[in-house]
């Protein structure tokens, strides 16, 4: 029986959400194509994860090796290329995450297996693999097909497929001997590094006034600070604001920043790239202010204002202060 591989992603003792999202998509595809769903688990002392994965799959292939304890693309690639060459799965799903982007392209190149990255959908259509991706910051979608092959690799965008619970399937757990004979001499994991926590915790705020590149200059920042103050909220931001040093990194919302769930999130001059949206889409109410009616942020928001932020924000601040007086 042919297989669909899902590469389990875990870090510091936890399976990451994207793993379960991929299992859901993988299960749908495996049912449609009549293939087995196989989870591939690389790591060290990860037997606990294997049980969880077995609940959702036909089988779990586990390679347990101290050299796989922390992610190292070179070591992971060696193990995976062996597994894929041996078992020839028509499709391998990997998360489009810091882990996946470091691994999938070199793996695909070594195997000469066509790769599509950052996909929001994937399907087999008459032997051909077809994917949907987003380009131009989410403003345009592309439907693309991959060159015909026995084996494809696809990285899936996180937080795109909803992880679904299934009746425990009790898949078989098979341990595969590690092909690694020595440490990777040219690339070493040293340690994790976490920036020390700042004074403000945006994840605890009820109201976030979030600012993006539309603010244009550091000198314009006070207009959003005033709005936040009037509302009794806190200022957060998209990534470019932190990159430019206008706000500290603990104010950043998104995949590489914080995930927030306030009662009110006001996105000001933020386009709505998926890396931002996945950090705020579960807020109770989202209001977006953007002068571009086609900005993807309006697909995440409950209410939208299509206007110049330099006009709306001060007027809104005044209205709120008036109401309080």
């Amino acid at each position, binding site marked *: 029986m042919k297989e669909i591989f899902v590469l389990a992603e875990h870090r510091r003792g936890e399976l990451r959400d994207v793993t379960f999202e991929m299992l859901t998509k993988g299960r749908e595809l495996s049912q449609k194509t009549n293939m087995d769903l196989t989870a591939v688990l690389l790591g060290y002392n990860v037997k606990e994860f294997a049980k969880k994965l077995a609940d959702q799959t036909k089988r779990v292939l586990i390679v347990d090796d101290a050299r796989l304890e922390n992610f190292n693309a070179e070591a992971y690639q060696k193990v995976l290329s062996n597994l894929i060459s041996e078992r020839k799965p028509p499709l391998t799903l990997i998360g489009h*995450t810091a882990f996946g982007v470091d691994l999938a392209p*070199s793996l695909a190149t070594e195997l000469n297996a066509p790769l*599509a990255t950052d996909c929001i959908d994937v399907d087999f259509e008459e032997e051909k693999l077809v994917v949907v991706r987003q380009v131009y910051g989410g403003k345009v979608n592309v439907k693309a097909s991959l060159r015909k092959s026995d084996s494809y690799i696809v990285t899936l965008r996180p937080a795109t497929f909803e992880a679904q619970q299934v009746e425990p399937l009790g898949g078989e757990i098979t341990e595969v001997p590690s092909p690694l004979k020595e440490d990777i001499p040219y*690339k070493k994991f040293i340690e994790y*590094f976490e920036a020390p926590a700042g004074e403000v915790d945006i994840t605890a705020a009820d109201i976030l006034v979030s600012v993006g590149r539309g603010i244009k200059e550091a000198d314009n920042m006070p207009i959003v600070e005033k709005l936040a103050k009037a509302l*009794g909220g806190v200022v957060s931001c998209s990534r470019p604001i932190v990159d*430019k040093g206008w706000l500290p990194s603990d104010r950043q919302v998104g995949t590489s920043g914080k995930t927030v769930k306030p009662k009110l999130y006001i996105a000001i001059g933020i386009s709505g790239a998926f890396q931002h949206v996945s950090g705020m889409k579960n807020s109770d109410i*989202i209001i977006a202010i953007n002068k571009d009616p086609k900005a993807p942020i*309006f697909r995440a928001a409950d209410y939208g204002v299509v206007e110049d932020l330099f006009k709306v924000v001060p007027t809104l601040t005044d209205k709120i202060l008036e*109401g309080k007086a």
Partner: protein
Amino acid sequence: MDKEENRMDIIVCVKHVPETAEAEITVSPGGKSINTEDLVFDINEWDDYALEEAVLLKEKLGGAVTAITVGPQDADSTLRKCLARGADKAIRLTDKAFEGSDAFATAKILHKAIKDLPFDIILTGTQAGDDGYAQVSVVLAELLGIPHVTMVKKVEPKEGFMRVNRELEGGLQEVLEVKLPALLAVQTGINEPRYVSIMGIRKAREKELKVLGLADLGLKEEEVGGCGSWITVEKMFIPPVEKEAEILTGGLDEVSAKIVEIIKSKGLV
């Protein structure tokens, strides 16, 4: 460290891309690309940081920076910008046959151009803002047979290796050591890209900008463009709207009043 002894040959890969965050985007009649006539093109945001990191390393250790792109003649403006900002040489890879290349084919073209050049480090961006593959860098490293690190947020040169911080999710980073030569794909915010000075622009005019094509690189037509690609675009379309915000209309006062109403109705003010 002694400057000349540690001198580095650095290659930085840059892409000339349209700015689309604030522009109106339309799909062209064939349905396989967007109309770019009215768009402004510039260096890819991530590559801007890669270029700056290359120039910073050169200033610290000595050496030379070569900027390289696969693109049309228009991409010269991006290469000139690199030269003005401190790159020493520029190479543009252009050929009719390169058109329609996906990330894999683009990496193959870059590979042929780079493999015989001297280099200690190749710097690239995490992703290109247009296609967003996040793929060219790592394929290129694999073709060259050198190690790579993506999402690089900090670079510290040591003897024969680099200590780098790599960005993970949720503000976490991992620290790695990678032996040279290596490819590092940098993430935004790693540095503060400098502005181009008048002096820089003047000096850039005298710097070399080389153009190479299919035959110069020893490539065959079927290895590049659509034929040499993994991916074929079937169609481009504006994403369907599954859920859309309720757009608040009216004058500034009216819109503001409506927002206040919404906030009040949720008991937030």
